[in-house]
């Protein structure tokens, strides 16, 4: 038994080594990183990298928070009512819509980016928060609808029937029965929408020019592409951009695993 734990720890250590290496580099002076032999511990560490990261990428981090929160909002507002209709109300054409949502998830992001670029160009939505939120929602809304619908199917009909008998309309039933019992599923859908929008690079790099704002993923990309020797600044930025993922894993691990596995096998 003990041996297995030790082996498990070793496996995790090897697989998570790149993350350690990121943190290690983020804490070393830039000069130390350019020596032939890398230092395995950030002895004599410095927060210089983080100062540089915040100075150059601070506004980008904020932009990404705004975009991610906006995406969560739009995704849930559009997806929750639709999921209710698809799961609980017998809407003709419902199954067809579910199929369409499954299929559109297969469209490669580059195709969406290419198409949205020309559409947004005409609408003046390039370089706008709204544009990026709407673009990110193309990935999160189908996912959220399918996830929420799968959950809402299992809400017992007795609950909604009772509310109907009490004279509540669809809207009342939706608001006071469906939404409260679906809390966990809503949190899961919201978390994944946030993570997706936070991590999005493709829409960010194609639909913004960096003139009015720049999401953090594009910030890192340009930082890396500058061929700068500033690896401690780059790695410090990477650490900051990784924080939401780490926080969510610690705080909401249950939801993350639920969302991940809901993906493939079960529903």
């Amino acid at each position: 038994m003990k041996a297995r734990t030790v082996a498990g720890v070793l496996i995790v250590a090897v697989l998570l080594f790149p993350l350690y290496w990121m943190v290690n580099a983020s804490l070393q002076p830039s000069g130390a990183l350019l020596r032939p032999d890398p230092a395995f511990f950030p002895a004599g560490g410095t927060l210089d990298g983080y100062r540089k990261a915040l100075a150059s990428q601070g506004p980008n981090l904020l932009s990404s928070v705004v975009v991610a929160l906006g995406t969560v909002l739009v995704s849930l507002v559009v997806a929750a009512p639709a999921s209710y209709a698809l799961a609980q109300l017998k809407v003709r054409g419902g199954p067809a819509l579910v199929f369409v949502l499954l299929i559109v998830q297969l469209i490669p992001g580059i195709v969406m980016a290419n198409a949205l670029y020309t559409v947004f160009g005409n609408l003046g939505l390039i370089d706008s928060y709204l544009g990026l939120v709407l673009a990110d929602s193309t990935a999160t809304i189908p996912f959220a609808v399918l996830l929420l619908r799968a959950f809402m199917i299992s809400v017992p009909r007795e609950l909604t029937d009772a509310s109907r008998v009490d004279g509540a309309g669809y809207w009342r039933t939706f608001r006071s029965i469906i939404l409260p019992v679906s809390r966990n599923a809503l949190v899961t859908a919201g978390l994944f929408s946030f993570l997706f929008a936070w991590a999005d690079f493709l829409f960010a790099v194609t639909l913004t020019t960096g003139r009015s704002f720049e999401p953090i993923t594009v910030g890192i990309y340009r930082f890396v592409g500058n061929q700068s020797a500033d690896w401690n600044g780059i790695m410090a930025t990477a650490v900051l951009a990784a924080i939401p993922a780490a926080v969510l894993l610690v705080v909401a691990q249950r939801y993350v695993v639920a969302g991940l596995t809901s993906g493939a096998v079960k529903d």
Partner: protein
Amino acid sequence: MTLVAPAVTASPRAGRKPRRENRFAAWLFLLPALAYVVVFFGYPLAANVVMSTQDYTVKSFYTGEAPFVGLANYAAVFGNPLFSTAVLNTVLFTAGSLVFQFGIGLALAVFFSGRFLGSALLRSLLLLPWLLPLVVSGAIWRWMFDQDHGVLNAALRLVGFDAVPWLSSTGWALPAVILTNIWIGIPFNLVILHGGLRAIPASLYEAAALDGAGAWQRFRHLTWPLLRPVTGIVLMLGLVYTIKVFDVIMVVTGGGPANATQTLTTWSYRLSFGDFAFGQGAAVGNVLILVATLFGLLYLRSAKATLAEAAA
């Protein structure tokens, strides 16, 4: 990070006709989603198809004019020597990523399906690479691949090998991005396969152990066949994702050196946003849609079969 669609569900409830006056109210709930699908999928996709038959350039944005050129964009794309490079790279990237992330994911799933002190905690820690923004993972690996200061070459030198020009040689760049993508894909395979393993009844293993089956025999004759439906789904989903990977390649190599890591996705991006040949970019994109949809439909079929099996 990539999102995964929940598989098809059969509605357990049948019959029960809604009253006529309610239909309208029910539709109102669907309306925002329907509008979204039409405006943000229907229209752009149609525009993409139209664009692929036009000479659409930067000038078109100002003049609004993009002359119809028929299939000239497709001819240009298929006739470009980069097309076969991009296809070959896409195939190698996808196959290499899938084989290793699945193999390692499966081995880890079997290992962590044993109950031992800390197994759940360690398993959830392994999710971290999957939750990270791909740009972050790409940046980390690019630093580790650094020829003079990267940790990989430092390790190689330590054991007496020469430093490898990971990202600057045309021979090593593709293996390097594949390696990065394998690392990113392991957690997904691990978690889904782990779920599949847990669904296999423990009593089967007890019976097999009583019959004197060794660990390898138990895996070969129990685990592997019983896991097959899940295996199919994991591989099919992995395929659909991997074909369209963009972020990792862009950050680690940018498609270079000398197009050594150019895939259909990055090439489509370069055509549209680097060369401003939007028509050709759209044409490559449409080829990608066709491939992804083909495999996606296969996935839906296998997912449905799995659910039907589970229900039986």
